[in-house]
């Protein structure tokens, strides 16, 4: 009797404990950051963070054993299955459309703004399945999950630039080390078919909370838009962050060329109800201190230049609006200093179908010297001539500014190029980098269906990491300026624009013409040789003995 009673008590206690664990082991936070930009545009960043507490990524050495059962409340099961199946420690997938204008918009809130698709993952070594096999499985599984052609991120596009893409979380301490795999597909275009599966991974889908604003009609009409999936391992557990960024143009949307915006005018929706399972749900608006604006409704909290609205506290639908009452029509700023430390322009010059010249123009906008890493990951379609790499400033050769060059030559049809270097950029100057490239001649079957369009080449990545270390610069610039740029929280990536290369494209009806023509030629040559060999030759007397005369050819 007593034991039965004890059993009951223990059972209920254990049930209670399990329930509290289930309630607190996962937490979901959502936030929307709105940032009015200098050129009248509005940057919006949705961020949905799910933290699975007390869970470590799967150790690849245990891939041949049965995995633990996956029981999730808020964490997306479809993504969790992929991460466990391929033992991925950290993963970043971004699908973007458009060029991020660093000069006018500054750094993005989420750094991954490479045009097209970009996928990189840190995975542990060891175990029964190799890193490359798991990388292949990962990109195919993600391709299926997000309806994107990530399956084409194959060995011909995969590199391992570990210095540029450092893990954002921590890596578990296993026996074997971790490896990076990185690939880009600039021709991939993000659209509604990628957003729909993205929304299905959210606990509240697009039916409540901040995600209600994710209206595909408006998002894909934006000047720049992109979605991202970021998985990392923190000491607290595994964190999945789903993000959507877009840059809207309220001036274009408004009838009278004003930059006033509201959630209703930008997204065509308002936040009607809060997501019931979100721990926090906030809308943040960054305010421009130097202009006369009005913001409605009253924010829950104002912290410096940032107004915060807590969606959960509100009973009526939330429609944040910002107006500039004093402005008749928005005047675009004509001349304004760039907002990013570096401005980069990258082009491919030359009209020939076999050779071209890669030209990168980098301007250091800061009054201090900047050291920056420079990364090119090119598919084998173009090959660099490294000895033609030249740097100059205003026509003066300065090859000494390029140092620590590492280069992995491409293997045609198999492996891409990897080129890394450290650039030293003097203050307020423009560095020109040029390098000759040769375009490969593709096999007939390697051309895409739209071969005449050309091939998109991935963006280069720059990371300014060292500001004003040069003693001369420290001497000439004021200590305040130096300190301002000296220690950024973490080095931030700058993606250049993508390139389009035109390769020699065959006439695709050629094979049949070639078959017919070469057959005709062979038949002609064969016929004449054969006739020569088997023809009957005789001497013909011309002095008239008709009796001896014979026809010359039989």
């Amino acid at each position, binding site marked *: 009797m007593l034991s039965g009673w004890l059993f009951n008590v223990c059972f209920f206690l*254990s049930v209670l404990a399990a329930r509290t664990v289930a309630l607190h082991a996962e937490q979901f936070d959502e936030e929307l950051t709105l940032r009015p930009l200098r050129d009248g545009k509005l940057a919006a960043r949705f961020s949905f963070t799910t933290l699975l507490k007390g869970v470590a990524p799967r150790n690849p050495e245990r891939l041949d054993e049965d995995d633990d059962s*996956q*029981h999730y409340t808020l964490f997306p099961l479809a993504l969790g299955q*992929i991460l466990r199946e391929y033992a991925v420690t950290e993963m970043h997938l971004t699908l973007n459309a458009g060029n991020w204008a660093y000069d006018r918009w500054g750094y993005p809130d989420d750094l991954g703004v490479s045009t097209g698709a970009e996928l990189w993952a840190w995975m542990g070594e060891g175990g029964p399945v190799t890193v490359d096999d798991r990388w292949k499985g990962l990109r195919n599984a993600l391709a299926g999950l997000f309806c994107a052609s990530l399956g084409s991120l194959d060995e011909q596009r995969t590199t391992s630039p570990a210095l540029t893409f450092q893990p954002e979380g921590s890596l578990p301490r296993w026996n074997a080390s971790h490896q990076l795999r990185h690939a880009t597909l600039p021709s991939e275009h993000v659209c509604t078919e990628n957003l729909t599966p993205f929304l299905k991974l959210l606990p509240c889908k697009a039916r*409540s909370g901040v995600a209600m604003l994710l209206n595909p009609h408006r998002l894909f009409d934006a000047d720049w838009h992109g979605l991202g999936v970021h998985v990392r391992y923190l000491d607290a557990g595994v964190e999945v962050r789903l993000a959507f960024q877009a840059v809207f143009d309220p001036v274009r949307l408004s009838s009278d060329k004003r930059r006033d915006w509201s959630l209703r005018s930008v997204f065509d929706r308002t936040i009607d109800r809060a997501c*019931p399972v979100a721990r926090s749900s906030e809308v943040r608006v960054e305010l421009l201190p130097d202009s006369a604006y009005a913001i409605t409704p009253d924010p829950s909290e104002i912290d410096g230049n940032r107004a915060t609205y807590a969606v959960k506290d509100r009973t009526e639908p939330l429609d944040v609006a910002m107006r500039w009452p004093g402005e008749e029509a928005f005047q675009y700023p004509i001349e304004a200093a760039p907002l990013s430390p570096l401005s980069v322009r990258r082009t491919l010059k030359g009209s020939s179908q076999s050779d071209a010249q890669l030209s990168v123009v980098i301007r250091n906008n800061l009054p201090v010297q900047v050291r920056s890493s420079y990364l090119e990951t090119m598919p084998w379609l173009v090959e660099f001539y490294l000895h033609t790499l030249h740097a100059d400033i205003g026509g003066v050769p300065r090859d000494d500014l390029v140092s620590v060059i590492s280069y992995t030559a491409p293997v045609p049809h198999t492996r891409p190029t990897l080129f890394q270097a450290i650039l030293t950029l003097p203050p307020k100057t423009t560095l020109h980098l040029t390098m000759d490239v040769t375009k490969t001649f593709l096999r007939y079957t390697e051309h895409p269906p739209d071969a005449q369009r050309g091939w998109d080449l991935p963006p280069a990545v720059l990371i300014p990491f060292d500001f004003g270390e040069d003693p001369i610069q420290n001497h000439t610039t004021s200590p305040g300026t130096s300190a301002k740029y000296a220690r950024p929280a973490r080095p931030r990536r700058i993606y250049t624009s993508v390139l389009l290369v035109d390769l020699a494209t065959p006439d695709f009806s050629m094979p049949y013409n070639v078959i017919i023509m070469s057959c005709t030629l062979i038949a002609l040559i*064969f*016929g004449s040789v054969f006739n020569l060999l088997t023809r009957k*030759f005789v001497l013909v007397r011309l002095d008239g003995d008709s009796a001896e005369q*014979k026809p010359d050819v039989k």
Partner: protein
Amino acid sequence: MDHSSRPLVDPAKPFFESNHTRRSIIASYWLVVLLAVPLWWTTTSIDRLSLPTSRVLAQQDKQLVFPVHVCLSTQESSLAGPTATLARVVQQLLDAEREMQERSGVHIHTDLDCDRDVYEVEVLSGTNQPTIEGKRLRFEIDETQVMSAMRLTDTLLTLLAPYVTLRSNNHQTERVLKYAPRYRLALSLLNEDATSEHSIKAWDVQGHLSKHISPILDRLSVLHNFTVESQIQFHAPLAFEPVTLQGSGQEVHGLTQEHLTVFVNSAEWTLSSSVSNDPVIHFILFVPSAKHTPLHILDAAGQPVASSAFILPQWGGIVVHNPNSAISESTVLVPSELDLMFATFRHQLMTLLGVPELSKNIQSNQSLTDWQIDALLRRRAIENAQGSKDTLRSIVQLVRQIENMPVGHDVKDDVQGSLTALEQTYAAASSSLHASIERSKEAITLASRAFFNPGMLALLYFPAEHKYAVYTPLFGSIAAPLLAAVIRELMAWRRTRHGAQQAGSKDAKEKVD
């Protein structure tokens, strides 16, 4: 010019010009062509290995039958005589049902020899219902021999051949999932709308899984492996509007029989699993929104039925949970409610996996008896054997019908391996059930791998006409002078022979003249 001044070589005939040389040249051309034909043939022909067709066809008429040995024993000395008689009568009664036994793939034999590992019936005196302990059935008799024998025969048939007896559910065979070595059990708690007041935000899934489902999974581990996973969704709308009924005092919402067939809203519910090819068994706990509460299942006449659960054949089970209005504030499920739901899930899982139901008048202390497991094993072995037979026959027929289909070594090896495993399944049926099921698993795996071999489709879409279209411009124009040369030489040869004959006959004529 006289004969003496002539050189030995006739200048009218160039030294390189002779019939012999010319004919050798033509012959050597033809020789090259003829020698090249086998090379061309081997490089362009399709690799078609011969399949063991006769062995496959020989398998078609075989039936897998498991001999089952049941022994009767008793501890009570007074029952020794009646037990022996009982065994004899039961055997007679079973023999009368021979056809039915064969249909379910068993051949039951009863005797008194209990020294081997067999099903044992312990005969006791009493009036209680039969009980099962492991492989032993306690059977109590008190009435006449004939009645007991009929009762025992009936019980044995229900236990050993449960799938075709009249008692079992006829729909069961269509509900059961196809055999797979590994299943994924996906439990989903779906809230129609989590922002409404009746919503469940958490459930103790692990505790109830280990309490209700895991014992079953452990018992079934001889046959299947399982991966279990669970998720909660907070917005899972229905794709249709339930009908509204005016019940006693309050509005009641109902799911008609048609609604049940389209209940799963696969466009909006993220249920599918993308990482593996294992079949998924879904279990869904659906919590309707306040707008649709209470939600009941309606019968054909449109009246609410007592049960709130239903099975989608070969897909999974669904339980509709109407939150109790008294405790509607709670956003978690109380253990007693969850116990009920997981008991339903367990029953649905057993139905979907084809576990036979234990008839109600047989008592057992286990949730799943050895008799049930063995019946399931026999059923799966028979299904697998039948499946591999059908697949092998399809492969053979397909290869015979489509002449362009290549058959490589891997396909041939798989077919042969499957055949060998199938033959071993039959051979092992009389000795060991477990060996037999293992071999039958192997047979069906190999047969499906052979059937879905990607290499068999390689040349299917490249017909011979295309080849000839490419060859003709070359071979046609080359064949013309080759043939012409042969014909010309033949005609020249005939003319010279004719000329020689004519000349010969002329000479003879002249001689005669």
